[in-house]
């Protein structure tokens, strides 16, 4: 058990990877065995991430040096800087890891019955596992180049999944758009990594952070990194790919692609808070991130109101919700260098942003899954051609209502809790920003009410008389997320205290992150 804890960071990446490599061999037998292997691998990964999380909350940051003679030997003997790749998992990384693996597990279960309609099931599950590997690998790594490699795994598998339904013309177009944006973003990130490597001859995040001087080259690298990760997480000036990609992604994969973009959000924060930290001009960079957030929130929701395609509508809301996280954490970043402001509202803003990440992954995931359930049953994504589904699809309706109430920030749902944390703290920073955030929330509610009326209420349309509830695995996948939302709504303080606050502390504790690898400062 103890050695399982020691090796858990790498096992959480290697186990789904091993399963992905195995699938082409075992899918020769039958699809049931394959499904069991996929679900078992993801469940085991979830277990590993959870025991890793328990260990981190008890004893603090966890490092794992790959290929060294001991896993905690970050720096070779008689030497000053790390040479090997180091996995560095703190409370923030493991928080993101929990989100990624949980959503992947729900999506994998949800996709079982979908795959009976389609060919290529084994390829689908291989790509799904690889997408999970990409997310977890990106979140756990402590090495910049390694982050780039896993970003590429995530991009390629995400694009391939988006293009999965090859019988639709727009599927390959959505996938193509995603892969072009991802490839350009990733190459820009690689260029920035090259700048760091050329200056410091280092690739480890903690080691670079220790010697970071914030030269003009570092500033250029920071700008490139913000633009590149902004492209990947679909913040507004660079959001054009998101609706096309999310709307064509099959079955359970649109939540996963969404969570993958949250992993890029994590990478952006890791770079701002840990790689640069207080050495950079936190006020300016904080405001840049706040502006990205406000633009995303506002443009996302105003475009969403006009949509008639249910998945495009949800995609624009996804953009808008990412804005809240950028806003909350951007406010925290802007006051990072000011200990008084940080203690009075900065930390609360970061906590709100982080709490919003997990809430959003849950309810946005649930909403994407209900939209896909409607598409599964009706064969259309057009809201004008739906109606009266509340009678035929009771559970889906209930899940939709839960998700819609949560995303609009109606008390007592979890979306309300995290949004309240953001409003309160942002109000102290700048009242105008808080007012915009509330306005966006109202527009969100309006948009989801409209979608609810079109799809679920009203008279039953005659052409959908034969429509019944979706199969049980789909309900089960949605149920996992719905139960978690209800739990998070009923006990917000437990969640905040156990996982959100440690993540906040880990994110702003740059010195702790550095000293874990580089020894005492």
């Amino acid at each position, binding site marked *: 058990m103890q050695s399982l804890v020691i090796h858990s960071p790498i096992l959480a990446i290697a186990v789904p990877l*091993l399963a992905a490599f195995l699938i082409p061999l075992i899918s020769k037998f039958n699809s049931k065995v394959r499904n069991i292997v996929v679900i078992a691998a993801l469940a085991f990964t979830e277990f590993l991430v959870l025991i890793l999380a328990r260990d981190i909350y008890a004893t603090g940051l966890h490092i794992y040096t790959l290929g060294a003679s001991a896993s905690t030997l970050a720096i070779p003997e008689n030497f000053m800087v790390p040479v090997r790749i180091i996995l560095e998992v703190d409370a923030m990384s493991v928080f993101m890891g929990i989100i990624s693996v949980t959503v992947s597990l729900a999506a994998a279960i949800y996709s079982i019955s979908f795959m009976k309609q389609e060919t290529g099931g084994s390829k689908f599950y291989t790509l799904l596992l690889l997408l999970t590997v990409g997310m977890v690998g990106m979140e756990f790594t402590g090495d910049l180049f390694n982050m780039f490699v896993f970003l590429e795994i995530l991009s390629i598998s995400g694009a391939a999944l988006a293009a999965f339904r090859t019988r639709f013309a727009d599927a390959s177009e959505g996938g193509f758009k995603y892969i072009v944006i991802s490839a350009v973003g990733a190459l820009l990130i690689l260029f920035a990594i090259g700048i760091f490597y050329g200056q410091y001859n280092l690739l480890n995040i903690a080691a670079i952070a220790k010697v970071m001087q914030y030269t003009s080259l570092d500033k250029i690298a920071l700008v490139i990194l913000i633009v590149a990760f902004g492209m990947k997480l679909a913040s507004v000036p660079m959001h054009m790919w998101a609706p096309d990609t999310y709307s064509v992604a099959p079955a359970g994969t649109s939540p996963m692609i969404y969570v993958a973009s949250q992993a890029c959000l994590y990478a952006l924060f890791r770079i701002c808070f840990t790689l640069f930290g207080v050495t950079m001009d936190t006020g300016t960079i904080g405001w840049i991130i706040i502006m990205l957030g406000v633009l995303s929130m506002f443009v996302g929701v105003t475009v969403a109101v006009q949509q008639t395609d249910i998945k495009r509508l949800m995609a624009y809301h996804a953009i808008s919700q990412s804005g809240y996280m950028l806003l909350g954490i951007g406010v925290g970043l802007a006051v990072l260098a000011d200990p008084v402001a940080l203690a009075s509202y900065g930390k609360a803003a970061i906590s709100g942003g982080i709490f919003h990440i997990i809430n959003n992954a849950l309810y946005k995931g649930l909403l994407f899954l209900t939209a896909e359930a409607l598409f599964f049953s009706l064969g259309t994504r057009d809201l004008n051609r739906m109606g009266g589904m509340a009678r035929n699809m009771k559970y889906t309706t209930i899940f939709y209502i839960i998700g819609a109430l949560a995303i609009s920030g109606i008390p007592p749902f979890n979306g309300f809790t995290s949004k309240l944390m953001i409003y309160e703290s942002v109000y102290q920073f700048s009242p105008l920003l808080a007012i915009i955030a509330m306005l966006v929330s109202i527009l969100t509610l309006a948009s989801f009410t409209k979608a609810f009326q079109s799809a679920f209420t009203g008279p039953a349309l005659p052409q959908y008389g034969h429509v019944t509830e979706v199969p049980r695995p789909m309900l089960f996948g949605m149920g996992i997320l719905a139960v978690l939302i209800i739990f998070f709504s009923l006990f917000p303080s437990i969640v905040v205290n156990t996982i959100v606050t440690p993540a906040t502390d880990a994110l702003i504790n740059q010195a702790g992150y550095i000293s874990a690898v580089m020894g005492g400062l």
Partner: protein
Amino acid sequence: MSKIVRTITNLLTPFILMFGLYVIMHGHITPGGGFQGGAVFASGIALLIVAFNSAKVQEKLKERHLSVIESSGALMFIGLAFAGLGITFFYNFMVGSSIFGQIPPEGSNPGYMWTAGVIPLMNIAVGLKVIAGLSAIVLVMALASSNIRIDE
């Protein structure tokens, strides 16, 4: 393609494939390695596909066999990484053992085959993977552009 191209291809292909295997096997002592050698080998396959046509190559080289080879290469690679797990993932546990365990003399030396621990084995695993992977990509895209669907 014309008869000249096919004759030259027949002559050249064995040498290209042999050179690819050489680059894979000697990755730890001379320039090269699994990826480079695999790419050379796969370019030989690509030459075959260009010279003859993709349907003809497909008779001998089924896509699903390639995918099995690729998976086994990947499994061998990750298996070697897992084998070091007694100490750490990716630990080079074979340095000093009897297989590939020699340590070369410090500084310039003529190069010894029996060195480098797991590196030669990983080269072979990656080589297998890259041979199968790149050949599969080239083959599938060639088949698709001539409108032949492939079975899974």
